[in-house]
Structures are given as C-alpha cells and as structure tokens.
C-alpha cells in the first residue's frame, strides 16, 4: 500500500516540522479506513468499531490542525462510524424474536463498501501497470516525441506583431540608402512563400524577411504570411513563448496545389 509512510495514531503537533502528510495517499475517507484496518491487521469481518472510530476522528483532528480542508465526505463518514458504534451499543430489540433471527450486523454495509473500494483500488493498480507498459513502447510515427507536436507553442497575434515590429526596426537601423521603389503584390509573395515551403519543411520567421528591400516590401510580406495562416496553409509556432517563430507548412498544403 502506498500509505505506509504516514504516521498513524501518533499524537502530532502541527508546529513540529517532522510531520508531512502526503495528501494523495489518503484520497478519501474509505482509503483512510482501509489504511487503519491494514495497519493493525484487523479482520475486516470483525472491525473494532470503537477503536477505528477513535482513530478516524484523531486523523480528522490532525488534518484540521494541519489546515487541510476536510470535505463533507470525511464528516459524513465520521457520522456513519459514530452511528454504527451507537447501534452496536444498543441492546437487542426485546420485542423481536432474538434467537431465531439475529439482527443484521450494523457494520455489514460499511464492510461491503470497503471491499468494493479495495476492489477498484486493485483495478486502478492494474491500469497503472498497463500504463507503464504503454509508456515504454513507441510506434510509427512516435507521436510522443515529434518536435513539432509537443512542447510547441502556437503563436499569438501579439507575438507576431512584436516579431514584425522588431524586423521593421532592424530594417530601419540597417538601411543605408533608399532603394528604388519596387512593386510586389501580396499574391506574388504568397506564391513565393508557397514555393519556399516546397523545398523547406520550416522557415525562420525573421529569415523570411531578409530579402525585403523596403518598408513596403516588409509589410506586403507580412500580410502575405497572415493570409497563408488564415487559409491554414501554414502554421506558426515557437518552441517556447517569446522565442523565435517558425513558419511550417500545414498538412493540407499539399492538397491545395
């Protein structure tokens, strides 16, 4: 069981630094009860309800001291335990024919619930093992590790505008002389980008602007790129936020030709 490391039933001051509660060890009240039962090797069919109730309430108090938010489920179980305890203290109903029909054990329902819970904990363990195995195999294409699929951030419009702004600034700083006005249309640029992507799987966003010779050319190039993104022919991504932006063809690009 995963919960062995939890000190059970020990008196604990919340101030003492030695106490660490692994929160997910006790997922819920049933897990705590199962832990208490296993710890003392209690026979599930004969639970000493007074002792278990006391230990359970002790834990609840401890969780309270540690400022762990105790949800309603925990209180409901506490009430259930106390109810069972009180029923067991009651003398048998004198009006019923006690000898022939012994009253049902008030613990029975709880025991079945515990067994049922343990059953599904085992099933969860089985799923865990299977998941381990599945994590140890790769298939073609290894979808877990394709560079473009995971650890990749889709670029926001703000990233794009910022990247473009930087390019324009760099262009302004480098410009040594005015070039002749050249007319480039968005359509031409789109065709250019398409043919570039036929050869390259991906392009650096900034490199795409290198051959631009005027501000106008830069802007036309940028608009062409936006148009291709809008038509879903290309997608833009970065390895991490605020890093270099890449241009890559989308899967459907082939079909548009």
């Amino acid at each position, binding site marked *: 069981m*995963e919960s062995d490391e939890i000190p059970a039933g020990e008196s604990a001051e919340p101030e003492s630094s030695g106490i660490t509660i692994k929160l*997910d060890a006790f*997922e*819920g*009240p*049933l897990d705590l009860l*199962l832990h208490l*039962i*296993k710890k003392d090797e209690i026979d*599930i069919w004969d639970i000493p309800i007074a002792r278990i109730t006391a230990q359970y309430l002790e834990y609840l108090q401890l969780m309270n001291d540690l400022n762990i938010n105790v*949800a309603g*489920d925990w209180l409901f*179980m506490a009430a259930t335990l106390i109810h069972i305890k009180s029923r067991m203290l009651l003398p048998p109903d004198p009006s019923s024919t006690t000898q022939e029909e012994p009253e049902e054990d008030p613990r029975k329902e709880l025991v079945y*619930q*515990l*067994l*049922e*819970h*343990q*059953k*599904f*904990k*085992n*099933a*969860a*363990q*089985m*799923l*865990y093992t*299977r*998941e381990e*195995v*599945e*994590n*140890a*195999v*790769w*298939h*073609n*294409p*290894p*979808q*877990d*590790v394709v560079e473009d699929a995971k650890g990749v951030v889709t670029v926001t419009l703000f990233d794009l505008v910022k990247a473009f702004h930087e390019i324009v600034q760099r262009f302004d700083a480098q410009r040594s002389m005015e070039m002749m006005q050249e007319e480039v249309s968005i359509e031409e640029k789109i065709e250019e980008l398409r043919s570039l992507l036929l050869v390259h799987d991906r392009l650096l966003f900034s490199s795409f602007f290198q051959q631009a010779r005027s501000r106008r050319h830069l802007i036309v190039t940028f608009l062409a790129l936006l148009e291709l993104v809008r038509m879903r022919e290309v997608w833009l991504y970065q390895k991490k936020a605020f890093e270099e932006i890449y241009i890559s063809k989308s899967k459907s690009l082939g079909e548009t030709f």
Partner: protein
Amino acid sequence: MEVKELQGILEAIIYVAEDPIRPEQFKEIIPDESFDNIELALKNLVEEFNSRPGGMIIREVAGGFRMTTRPEHHEFVRAYLKSRPNAKLSMAALETLAVVAYKQPVTLAEILAIRGKKSTSAVQTLLEKKLVSILGRKQVVGRPILYGTSKEFLIHFGLKDLSDLPTLEEFAQMAGDQL
C-alpha cells in the same frame, strides 16, 4: 494472392499506419481478397513477426493492429529520443477510471458511492484526456450524465477491447486476501 504476399502487404500497412488498423480496413484496401484470407495472413504475420527476436512487435490494440518497439528496449529508445515519460494519471484519476471502465455506463453519483469521495474533478481530467466520454443521460430524475470509456482508453492502456480487462471478480478475490 499468396498468403505470404498478403502478409507482406499487411506488414507494410501496419508499419506506416498512424492508428491501430482493423482487419476491416485491410479488406477495404485489398477488396479482392476474402476476409478469411486477410485474417489468416494477419494471424500468420503476427505470429511470425513476434516470434523473431527483433526490436519491434505487432500488438493488438483497440481492435486493431499496431507495430511498436518492444517494451524491454524502452530505456535506450527513450535515451535516443530524449523524451521524458508521459505525464501519468494520478491514483485518483486511475481509480475513477477503473470505476468507469467496470461500471459503465455510470453516473457521477454512482462513482461517488464506490469511491466514497466526490470525483467531479477526476472525471473532468479524464474527459479532457479523452479517456472517458459522455454516453448519454440516465432516464431517471435529474437525468444525470452517463460516462463510459473511449477508444483512446483502449489505446492508452494497450487493450484489445473491454473484455481484455481482468474481471472484477479477480480483484474481489485479491481484496479479500489483502484485508
């Protein structure tokens, strides 16, 4: 077509397929072959392929066939790919998933009864990971949502189909032994 030849074709298709590929899909690709022949070739292929001590195996997952690396080589494959193990499911999510898998179609209230704990967020996680899907609504007061496992669930846990899961009785036996 010779069974041997057919076997080769099936092997090639399984190699390139992105998802586990079902026998019916082979039939669509090779319509001239009888379904019986395809199934025979598949059976031979899997037997022969998996008996050789190679690095790959063909596994039956989610009702289809998929070629994967052998689990025992995972350390080296991982070292080459430099990938970290996938983010695994928490125990809470696994427990909830176990309840859904065995009790489907199941409502949140029924999950609560078994786990003794509210499981809304666990179910939410499982829905997001597409391991669990919504099957419909129960025709009782309040019409609660019914949950069940998805095909993704079978793939994630390497199961042929739901009957590939051990029976609940086996776990009951185990639980009895543990307590």
